[in-house]
C-alpha cells in the first residue's frame, strides 16, 4: 500500500512537471510576456537610453518608464532566459507563491480562491447528477434488458451523448428557466442554498451526457455480471431480485463506470468552460478563457496546474476505489 501511494506521488509530480513545462513554454512562445505587463513601454530601448545612445522621450521625469520596465522584469524574472524563469517559477510554486496576475496585479492565489468554489460546486453537482441518474437508469435497463424501457433508454442515451453541451444547456435554460420557471436562469450567489439551486441547470447540462455514457457502461457490465454463476447461486439461495442486483451484481459491475468517472474529470472541466459562459457563472472556466486571451500566463499556468493535480488525484482515488470494489486487486 505504501509503495502504491509512493508510486502515485511520483507520478503526480511527473505529470505536474510535464504539464507545467509545456504550459510555460507555450505561454512564452505566444509572445513577449513583458508586453502584457507594461504594455507599449515594452518597446522602449532602455539599454540604449542608459547608455545615452537613444534619447529618452519620457516627458515628465527622465527614465521613470525604464524604472517601471526594470521593476516588472525583476518581478516576473523577465530578464532571465525561459528555462531559468521556469525553474524560478517552480521554486515560487513550491513555496506557495503563485505569482500575480498580469491583468490587475492580484495574487493568482486570490483569483483562484475566488473562482474555484463555484467551479468545484458545479463539477461535484454534475458528477452527483451523472451517477445519481446513471446508476438507477443502468440497473433498470439491465434488469429488463432488451425490453421496451431498455430500448427507449438506448435511444435517449445516444441522443444525450450526441447533443453538444451548449445546445443542451440552451434547451434546458429555455424549458426549465424561461418556460416553466422551475430554476433561475441567472447565477445567484447570495447564499449557499440559492447558489446550489442556481447551479442545478448547469449541473444537468454537464451531468446528463455523462450519465448517458455511464448508463451504457453500467448496463453492459451488469448484463454480463447477471449471467455469472454467483448470481445464479444467489438466486438459488432464494434472495429476491433487487437484493441480488444491489448486493451481488452492482459492485462487480462498477469498474468501467468508475474508470470513466476518473477519466471524464478532465472532459468535465473542459465542459465547464462552455457551461460557465452560458449560465454566467464566474468560475475557473471563465477565468481561464479570459486569461488565455490576455496572455495572463501566471493565471493560466496556475489553473492548468490545478486541473492536472485534480485529474491525477481523482484517478488516484479511483485506483484506491478499485481495491475496495474488488478484493482481488488488493492482492496484486
Amino acid at each position: 500500500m505504501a509503495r502504491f501511494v509512493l508510486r502515485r506521488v511520483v507520478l503526480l509530480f511527473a505529470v505536474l512537471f510535464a504539464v507545467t513545462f509545456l504550459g510555460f513554454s507555450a505561454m512564452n512562445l505566444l509572445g513577449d510576456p513583458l508586453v502584457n505587463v507594461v504594455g507599449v513601454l515594452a518597446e522602449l530601448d532602455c539599454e540604449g537610453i542608459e547608455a545615452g545612445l537613444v534619447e529618452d522621450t519620457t516627458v515628465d521625469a527622465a527614465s521613470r518608464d525604464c524604472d517601471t520596465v526594470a521593476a516588472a522584469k525583476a518581478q516576473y524574472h523577465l530578464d532571465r532566459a525561459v528555462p531559468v524563469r521556469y525553474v524560478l517559477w517552480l521554486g515560487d510554486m513550491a513555496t506557495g507563491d503563485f505569482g500575480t496576475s498580469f491583468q490587475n496585479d492580484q495574487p493568482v492565489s486570490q483569483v483562484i480562491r475566488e473562482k474555484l468554489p463555484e467551479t468545484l460546486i458545479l463539477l461535484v453537482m454534475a458528477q452527483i447528477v451523472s451517477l445519481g441518474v446513471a446508476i438507477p437508469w443502468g440497473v433498470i435497463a439491465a434488469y429488463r434488458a432488451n425490453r421496451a424501457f431498455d430500448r427507449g433508454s438506448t435511444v435517449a442515451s445516444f441522443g444525450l451523448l450526441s447533443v453538444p453541451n451548449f445546445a443542451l444547456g440552451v434547451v434546458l435554460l429555455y424549458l426549465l428557466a424561461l418556460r416553466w420557471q422551475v430554476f433561475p436562469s441567472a447565477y445567484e450567489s447570495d447564499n449557499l442554498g440559492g447558489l446550489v439551486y442556481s447551479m442545478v441547470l448547469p449541473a444537468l447540462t454537464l451531468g446528463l451526457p455523462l450519465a448517458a455514457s455511464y448508463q451504457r457502461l453500467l448496463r453492459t457490465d451488469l448484463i454480463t455480471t447477471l449471467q455469472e454463476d454467483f448470481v445464479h447461486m444467489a438466486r438459488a439461495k432464494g434472495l429476491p431480485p433487487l437484493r441480488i442486483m444491489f448486493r451481488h451484481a452492482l459492485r462487480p459491475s462498477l469498474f468501467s463506470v468508475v474508470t470513466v468517472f476518473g477519466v471524464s474529470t478532465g472532459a468535465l472541466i473542459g465542459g465547464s468552460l462552455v457551461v460557465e459562459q452560458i449560465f454566467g457563472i464566474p468560475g475557473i472556466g471563465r477565468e481561464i478563457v479570459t486569461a488565455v486571451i490576455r496572455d495572463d500566463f501566471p493565471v493560466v499556468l496556475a489553473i492548468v496546474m490545478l486541473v492536472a493535480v485534480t485529474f491525477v488525484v481523482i484517478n488516484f482515488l479511483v485506483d484506491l476505489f478499485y481495491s475496495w470494489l474488488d478484493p482481488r486487486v488488493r492482492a496484486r
Partner: protein
Amino acid sequence: MAEQVAAGVPLLSVRDLHVQFPTERGTVNAVNGVSFDLYEGKTLAIVGESGSGKSVTAKTLMNLLPRTARVSGEVTYDGKDVRALAAEKVKHFFGVQMTMVFQDPMTSLNPVKKVGEQIAETLRYHLGRSRGDALEEAEELLNVVGIPEPGRRVSQYPHELSGGLRQRVVIAMALACQPRLLIADEPTTAVDVTVQKHLLDLLDELRRDRGMSMILITHDLGVAHGRADDVAVMYAGRVVETADARTLFFDMRHPYTEALLRSIPRIDDPVHHRLDPIPGRPPELVDPPDACAFAPRCIYAQADCLGGVPELSGLVGLHRFACLHPTGTERGMAAMSANRAAGVTAAGLPVAGSGGGSG
C-alpha cells in the same frame, strides 16, 4: 397412480417436463418430457453427456432458466406446484426448502464478498438472524463441511481459497437453511480428482445426517455408483433409462447406459486396456428427427429405431427404459448379431464383425 410401486408420496415429483429455448437457429428442445420421482431421504443421480438436458432440468427445478425459456409440465414439491410458487415469487422457498450447488466453485462464489458474509446472508434473509449470530452460524457451517480454521476463513475472500475449499463453502452456503432437497449440478467436475471423492463423501454424509434428499447431476456414472439410490440416464433431453442403482449398473437395458458404463475406466481393467468411446456426437436439439435420438450412435440400431421415438416403458418407480432392442434381451441380441453380420447398423454406423471390437 396405480402403477406406483414405492411407498408414500414423493418429496419431488416431475411430470412430463418440457423446456424449449427459442434461438436464431430454431427452437432448441432441451428437455423433452422428463418425469421422475424423488422420495424423502433418497438420492437420485441424473446422468448424461453435456447437452443431454440434465443441467437444464436442474435449473428448471430451481427456476433459474432465462426468461426466454418455454417450460411446460408439472413440478411438485411436497404437494406444492413449484412453478406456481416461483411465478408468485414466494419468499423463503428456494434456498430454504430446496437449493442447489453449482459446477464451478471458482465462479459460483461472489468474488467481492467475504465467504462468511455470503453464507450469513441466507441466514439473515430467510431466518431473520442478526448479523453477529449469522456469522457465528456461518463459521459453524464451515466447520461442518470440514474447512480447517473456520474462524479465519469466514473473513476471507473466495480468491484466497483453493477450489476444493470453495466448493465446501458453496456446500455450506447451500446447507445454511437446512434444505430438504439439495440439487448438486456436477459438484465435482471442476475440482481436482483428488478432491472429488472427499467432496462426494461429504455430500453423502451430510445428506444422511440431515435426512436430506439429493439430486446428483453428473456425466460420470462412476460418481453415481455407490451414492445414488436411483439413477436416471438422460439423452437428448429425455430420460432413456431409469432404475434403482443396482439394477441400472448390473442389469441395464438401454444401449446408451451400456455404452456409458463401458467408457469409464475401471480399477480392475488390465493395464493398457482400451476404453470404448461412444462413436459420434450427441445429437442436435434443434429439429430433432422423429426417431430414437441415440440410434445414429447405437450398435443395436434397427430400421424400426428410425421410425419413431421409443416410449419409456415399464413401471414407474421400477426399471424403465426407452429402447426397442434392449441390451441383455433376445431382441437386443438379435439386433446386435444382425448388425454385426451386415457390418453396419440401420443408421449407417459401421460395426466390427462378430467377436470384433478392440481387445
